[in-house]
């Protein structure tokens, strides 16, 4: 495609340096022992996308099993136990191996130091350790699938998880290790943002992506240890019967839910905030307009991070909390709508009267806005006590969180991947195929999950293997939608990989971005910048410059 050029794009354009971070050193060891945040980011990208593929295959199998009430899969009968394993592996892989580590580990690792004008993250070796912990955790998780099976769902709810014979202990140990990987990544980013900003860059000069990732990192550091100790308690309960979660030996199963959601609700924001962070970059860049309400977006990221810690009880409205507690949790949950609304309002206002161009990343950003609006609004149904009692554990919940986790975060991730792909690889992906895949993604996603809202409101319970015949048309519709998603992702993988075979053709700043990562070459040199960049203008400064015209 023709690179988009705006006023600032050609400024500072220079011949591509011969040595960059990809070719400066060669060989297995130069990657395995690297401390370069860019290489670690690439390795995280390969790892998390592989997990995405594996989790996606399980998702397709779940949908295919539900195509007909006969549960045939390529002519074979799927048992209820097998079905339980399918959705557990889909959920656990997607949450712990893909969504939580993907944007922080891959894209953020790559661009955050560049955006701050830094040479690396604060603790490069800790960054590598985090990657290795992820790999160990992934191997353990996959081993637990091969050795035995986990059929608890990704939430590991007691008392089932303390009594089932599956390899729950190994799986939870894997998640424990993955948790520490996440903590180290978050810790690194917090320290990097605090201490490694370019000279002259104050807190309110940072790109909004950095604000979003900073908020994410704070949650990673503060919430994940609680998950870690909860999983240790679960493992000990299984192995030594310590009597904390299992009511037969004097424990309290609901206590597990409290512990689990004290982490896992903030974890929802570990998943969505990075998506919001990416959108805050895409919208101004492709609207050619200074972002509207910079401070409001920055503060809303932080307030979402804080609110995330005090709403966990809304996962347990029917689990036996006191009436007072559920009312308070419901009211607090509604507060989440405020910063979320602030963000959407500011993104839309940024687009208003902007010079919008519809390149692939922007198509994903616009999809995000629509899908997040649906995901967010249906969240209010679930935060409302009277409707939640009806909707708890139905497909409505499944559709809601897929709109947020997949429709929002994964959409933003793919958009961000296209946005920074030229910077990471030095190559422009095919714009034509990109747009086709983006449209297919949007269609396929809605085809899959809109019917699930209807299914859920009519009483189809989640995680059930059997369903009434009357639900069959909607289940079939949803399954066909999942094939369109699969097709879209397959296309995306194909043309992104195909672009790697081309010679490097990406300019330093293909999209006319204003943040610092576009000031270095594509791909960047090992030390990121030839000279220490100094902040010259606020982020997203798209005002016409009198000097350059």
């Amino acid at each position, binding site marked *: 495609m023709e690179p988009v050029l705006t006023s600032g794009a050609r400024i500072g354009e220079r011949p591509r340096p011969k040595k960059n971070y990809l070719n400066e050193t060669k060989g297995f060891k130069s990657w395995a022992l690297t401390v370069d945040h860019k290489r670690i980011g690439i390795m995280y990208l390969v790892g998390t996308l592989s997990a995405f593929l594996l989790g996606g295959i399980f998702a397709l199998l779940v949908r295919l099993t539900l195509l007909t009430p006969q549960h045939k899969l390529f002519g074979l009968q799927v048992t209820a136990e097998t079905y339980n394993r399918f959705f557990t592996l889909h959920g656990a892989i997607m949450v712990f191996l893909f969504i939580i580590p993907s944007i922080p580990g891959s894209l953020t690792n790559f661009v955050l130091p560049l955006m701050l004008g830094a040479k690396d993250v604060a603790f490069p070796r800790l960054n590598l350790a985090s990657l290795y912990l992820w790999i160990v955790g992934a191997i353990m998780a996959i081993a637990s699938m091969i050795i035995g099976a986990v059929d608890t769902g990704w939430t590991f709810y007691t008392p089932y998880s303390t009594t089932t014979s599956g390899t729950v202990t190994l799986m939870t140990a894997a998640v424990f290790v993955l948790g520490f990987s996440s903590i180290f990544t978050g810790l690194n980013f917090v320290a990097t943002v605090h201490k490694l900003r370019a000279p002259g860059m104050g807190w309110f000069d940072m790109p909004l992506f950095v604000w979003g990732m900073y908020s994410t990192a704070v949650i990673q550091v503060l919430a994940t*240890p609680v998950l870690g100790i909860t999983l240790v308690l679960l493992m000990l309960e299984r192995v030594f019967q310590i009597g904390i979660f299992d009511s037969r030996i004097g424990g309290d199963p609901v206590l597990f839910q409290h512990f689990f959601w004290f982490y896992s609700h903030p974890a929802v924001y570990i998943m969505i905030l990075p998506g919001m962070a990416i959108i805050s970059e895409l919208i101004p860049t492709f609207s050619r307009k200074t972002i509207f309400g910079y401070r409001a977006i920055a503060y809303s990221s932080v307030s979402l991070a804080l609110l995330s810690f005090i709403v966990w009880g809304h996962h347990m409205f029917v689990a036996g909390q006191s009436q007072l507690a559920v009312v308070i949790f419901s009211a607090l949950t509604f507060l989440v709508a405020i910063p979320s609304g602030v963000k959407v309002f500011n993104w839309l206002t940024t687009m208003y009267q902007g010079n919008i161009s519809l390149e692939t990343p922007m198509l994903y950003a616009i999809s995000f806005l629509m899908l997040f609006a649906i995901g967010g609004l249906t969240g209010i149904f679930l935060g409302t006590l009277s409707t939640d009692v009806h909707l708890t554990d139905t497909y409505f919940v499944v559709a809601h969180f897929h709109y947020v986790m997949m429709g929002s975060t994964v959409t933003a991730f793919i958009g961000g991947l296209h946005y920074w792909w030229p910077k990471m690889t030095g190559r422009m992906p095919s714009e034509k195929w990109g747009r086709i895949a983006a449209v297919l993604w949007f269609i396929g996603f809605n085809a899959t999950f809109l019917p699930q809202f209807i299914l859920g409101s009519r009483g189809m319970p989640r995680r059930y293997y059997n369903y009434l015949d009357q639900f069959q048309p909607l289940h079939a519709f949803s399954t066909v939608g999942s094939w369109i998603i699969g097709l879209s992702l397959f296309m995306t993988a194909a043309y992104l990989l195909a672009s790697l075979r081309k010679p490097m053709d990406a300019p330093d700043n293909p999209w006319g971005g204003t943040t610092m990562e576009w000031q270095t070459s594509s791909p960047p040199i090992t030390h990121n910048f030839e000279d220490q960049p100094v902040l010259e203008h606020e982020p997203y400064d798209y005002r016409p410059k009198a000097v350059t015209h």
Partner: protein
Amino acid sequence: MSTTTTDVQSHGGHGEPDNPHHQHHFATMEQQFDTSKLGMWLFLATEILLFGGLFVGFGLMQSRYPREFIEAHEHLKQDVFGRPFPLYGAINTIVLLVSSWTMVMGVNAAQTDQKKKTVRYLVLTILLACVFLGIKYVEYSHKFHDGLLPGMFYAHQSEDLIKGTHGYATFFAFYFMMTGLHGIHVLVGIGLLSWLVVRARRGEFSSEYYTPVDLVGLYWHIVDMIWIYLFPLYYLIS
């Protein structure tokens, strides 16, 4: 911690090239020190949250089985002059408090270029940590002998704390989990302190560069502080 090791090979030649501990992505040694310290504080926050989950779990179980927990905690006491007194716990509290003091002296000595003194105080801290673990070993052996073990291994044979009653096994499960996790932290601390002793003897620390001593000091204080909370929780409840 990754920040504390030297990185001589990949020197970028920025800032103060004369200091071999200066990592290339920091502009100044001061920035590097501040960043490392911030990283350590964040890590300590995760430690507190990790133990926090156990403290909350203990509190909830205690409110579920208040009588059983009080009866069980009597078994952590020893007979001192005919009266029950948490002798081992009290001694260990004093041992750790003193070790915190020796640690502070060690950091101070490193900051003021006193190599011999640094080594001496660090070694003293290690010795005190070993005393702590030694006493813990004696304490654990008594519990093992009495069958006061966590969960399914609980096998106490006497008229009180009968096996099969909910609460007792849970108390000892938490006792072993929390003091055990703390003990592991003490062990890690001994490892870190030994590594500091080796480096201090090589004369690597000075008023210019004492980050590792400072950071391990912070770690050691948090380990000490957690014990300060564990002691009343387990040994002094009534």
